[in-house]
C-alpha cells in the first residue's frame, strides 16, 4: 500500500506540472479531473488500518465532486464561450515549467524543515502538498484567462486538502465538508462569472476587468 500511495502522490505532482506547461484549456481541465480522481482514491489506500464507512463516503464524495462534477462545470463554461487555448500568458510555458521545478525544490526544503508531528503517513505527502499548492498559486499568477485562474484555484485547494490529509488522522468530517463546499461554490460562481465576462467583453481575459477600476 505504501508504494501505491507514493506512486499516486507522484502522479498528482506530475499532473500539476503538466497543467502548468499545457496551453490547451480542455487539456488542463482533463488533467485537473485526473488529479481530482487521484485525490479521491488517496484516503483509501493511505490508511493502513483499513477503511470505515466514513472514509469511503468522503472518498466517493471527493472523487465525484473533484473528478467529475467540477470538470463538467468547467468544460460547460468554456464550451459556452468558445475558447480553446490560453494565448498570451504573462510568463511563457517553458519559463513557468522552470519556475515549477524551482518551486518543487523549495517545497522539499520547506517540508524537511517544517515542525510536523512525528508520524506522518508517508514521507512524500507534505512536499507534494506544498508543491501542488505553490504550482496552483503560480498558475493563478501567470495566466490571464478566467478559466485557467479557476483551474489554478482548484489546484491550490487540492494542495490544501493534501496537507490536511497529512496532519489529521481520521479524515475530519467537518473540515472536508467545508473545503468541498467551498470549492464547489467557488467553481459554480466562477462558471457564472466567466459567462458574464464573456458576454460583456466578448472574451474571457481578466485583463478587461482591469479597465473597470474604481
Amino acid at each position: 500500500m505504501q508504494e501505491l500511495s507514493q506512486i499516486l502522490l507522484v502522479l498528482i505532482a506530475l499532473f500539476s506540472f503538466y497543467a502548468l506547461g499545457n496551453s490547451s484549456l480542455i487539456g488542463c481541465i482533463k488533467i485537473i479531473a485526473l488529479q481530482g480522481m487521484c485525490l479521491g482514491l488517496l484516503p483509501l489506500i493511505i490508511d493502513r488500518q483499513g477503511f470505515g464507512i466514513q472514509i469511503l463516503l468522503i472518498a466517493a464524495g471527493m472523487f465525484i465532486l473533484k473528478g467529475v462534477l467540477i470538470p463538467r462545470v468547467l468544460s460547460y463554461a468554456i464550451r459556452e464561450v468558445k475558447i480553446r487555448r490560453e494565448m498570451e500568458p504573462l510568463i511563457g510555458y517553458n519559463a513557468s515549467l522552470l519556475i515549477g521545478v524551482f518551486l518543487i525544490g523549495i517545497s522539499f526544503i520547506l517540508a524537511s524543515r517544517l515542525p510536523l508531528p512525528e508520524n506522518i503517513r508517508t514521507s512524500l505527502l507534505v512536499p507534494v502538498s506544498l508543491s501542488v499548492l505553490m504550482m496552483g498559486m503560480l498558475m493563478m499568477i501567470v495566466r490571464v484567462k478566467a478559466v485557467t485562474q479557476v483551474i489554478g484555484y482548484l489546484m491550490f485547494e487540492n494542495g490544501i486538502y493534501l496537507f490536511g490529509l497529512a496532519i489529521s488522522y481520521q479524515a475530519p468530517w467537518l473540515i472536508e465538508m467545508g473545503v468541498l463546499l467551498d470549492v464547489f461554490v467557488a467553481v459554480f460562481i466562477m462558471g457564472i462569472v466567466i459567462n458574464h465576462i464573456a458576454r460583456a467583453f466578448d472574451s474571457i481575459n481578466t485583463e478587461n476587468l482591469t479597465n473597470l477600476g474604481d
Partner: protein
Amino acid sequence: MLITAILILLFGCLLSAFAARRPRIASGVFLTSLISGCLIGILSPFIGTRPEIVELGGGWNIPSARLILSLDGLSAFFLVATLIICLLSGIYGETYTRQSERLAQSVSIRPLFLLLTASLAVVVCAQNAVLFLFAWEAMALSSFFLVIIEDEKKENRFAGLLYFVCMHISALALFFLFSVLGKIAGTLDFGAIRAAMALGDKYPILIFSLAAIGFGLKAGTAPLHIWLQEAHPSAPSHVSAVMSGVVIKMGIYGFLRLIWILRLVPSFWAIFFIGTGLLSGIGGVLLALLQHDLKRLLAYHSVENIGIICLGMGLGCLGISRHNAALALLGFSGALFHVFNHSLFKSLLFLGSGAFYQALGTRNIEAGGGLLKKMPWTSATSLIAAAAISGMPPLNGFISEWLIYMAGLKALAMGETRLAAVSIAGLALIGGLALACFTKAYGALCLGLPRTKKAQEARDPGPGMIIPMFFLAAFCALIGLWPSSLLSFVKTAAMIVSGEPLGRANLALSGFISNAEILGLIGAAVLSLAAAFSFLRSRLISGFSQKGATWACGFTALGPRMQYTASSYVQVLMRPFSSFMGTQEYAHLPRGYWPTESSFKTNTPDPLLDGFLIPAVDAGGRSLSWIKRKRRARLQYSLFWASLFLLALLAWKL
C-alpha cells in the same frame, strides 16, 4: 429537553427555508417550530431531572471542541429570558411580516429568525469555547442578514456593513481571548478552565482588554456602541426587539460567564464597569433625548440600559475583588434583574414602535400625536413599557434599579466612597433623564392632537401583534408587583457568577428579597387605591362631565400645529448639554411683519461614529490614495505580492 428545543428550531429553520416560496406553509412551519421549540426550551430548566451538563454523543472532529451544553443557574436564566422574547417577538413578527408589503416578499426572514433563536439558545448554554464561538458567529451572521433584509435602502446597507465589521472585530477578540484562556488551562471546556484558573491569575490585563472589546462591542457599552443606533432602526421591528432585548445581552452574558470562569477579578474591572456604565448611561440617554427617529431613540436607550447593567456588574465585581459576598451578590442580582427587565420592556417598546411605524409610515415621532385615542392598545402597552424603562415604582424597572441602588449603598457602607457615590449619583441622573425622554417620545406620539393625516387614520394592528405586546406588558407589571417570583431565579444566577454557596446567598439576600416584596405590595396597594378612586370619581361625575378637545382649555379653534413638538419639549432641558452634543440646527426663521415661509430642523449625529470615526476613516482613505493610484488594478499582481509575502513569512519562521 434543551436539545430537543434546539433541534426543533433548527429543523423549522430548514423546513421554512425550503418552503420559503409558499408563504402559507412557511409561516405555518415557522409558528409551529417557534412556539414548540421556545416553550420546550423555556420549560427545560424547570421540569424533569435536571442534569447540570449534557454532552452530546458522536463528537466533533475539531481539536478540543466538544458539544457540551449546560443548564446551570446562569445559563438557565439567560435561556428563559432569550426564549420568552424570541417567542413573543416571533409571533408578533409573523403578523408584522404579512402586513408589510416589502417583508412579505422576503423568503429569508423566517428561517433566519429561527436560526437566530437557536443560536442564541446555544450561546447561553455552551460549555465549550469552540461551540460558544460557533454559536456566536451563527448569531452574528443571522442577525446581520436580518438587519439588511430591506437591502434596497442605502442606510440599511451601511448599517449592515457597520454591524458586520463590529461583529467581526468582536469575534476576533473573542478568538484571542479563548486561545489565551485555553493556553493557560490547556483545555477549552469552560468548567475545566475554571478549575485551572484557581491556580493563579495570569495575564489579567490582556484577558480583560480582549473581553472588553469582544463582549463590549456586542453589548454596546459606550465607546463601542457605534453599530447600535444604525442597526436597530434598519432591522424589521420584531428583529430590533430581539436584537435590543436579547442579542446585546449576550455581551453581558459573556462578561458574567468570564467572571464565573476567572473566579476572582482584579479591582480595575469594577472601576472599568462603573466608568463605562456611567458613560453609556448618561451619554446614551442624552443622545436619545435629541432623536426624532423613534427606533433610533430606543437604540440609544439600549445603550443607556446597558450602562445601568454595567453599573450593577461593576458593583458586583467590586464585591468580588474585596471579598464581600453580600455586595457581589447584590450587584450581580441588580444587573441580572435589569437584564431580564430590559429585555421585556425594550422589546415591548420596539414592538410598539413597529405598530406605530406601520400606522404612520414613518419612524419620526413628530408625525404622530393623539395616537392614544386612535391606537389604544398599542399606546397603553407602550405606556407601561415606557414607565417601566424610566424606573417608575410599581413596575419591574424600579425593582432592578432599586437593587443597584442598594448595592451602591452597601459599597458606601463598606468605605468605597468614590465608586459608590458616582454610581448612585449617575444612576439617579440617568433615571431622571430617561423619564424626560420617554415623556417626550410618548407625549409627542400618543398625546395631543394628530399632526398628520396618517395619524388621524391610524388604527390598532390585529390581535397577532397586540397579544404578544399585551403579554410583555403583563410580565412587566407582574414582576413589578411580585418581584420575588423572579428574584429567586436571579439569586441562583447571581450565586453562580459570584461563586458563593447557596447558604451564604440566602443569608445575604433574604432582607432585600423581603423588602422587594414589600415594595411590590405597596405598589399593588397604590394601584388598587387609584383604581378605586378613579372608579368612584367616574361614578360621581357621570352625567356632569363634558369632553372637549385635548389641551383645548376652553379654546375652540385649536390646531395640531399649536402643540409642543418633541424637540421644543426637550430644548430647555438640553440647553446645558448643547455645547458638547453637536446638534446641527437648520433654521429658516420667520422675518418681518408678514412672515411667509419658515422652517426649523435639527439633527443630532452620533458624536463618536459621525463625529469622529467616519471622518477619520475617510481621511485615512484619502491619505492612502497615492497607493491606490500607483497600484495596477490587476488581479495577478496582487496575487503575486500576496504569495511572495506568505513565502517570505514561511521562510522567515523556519
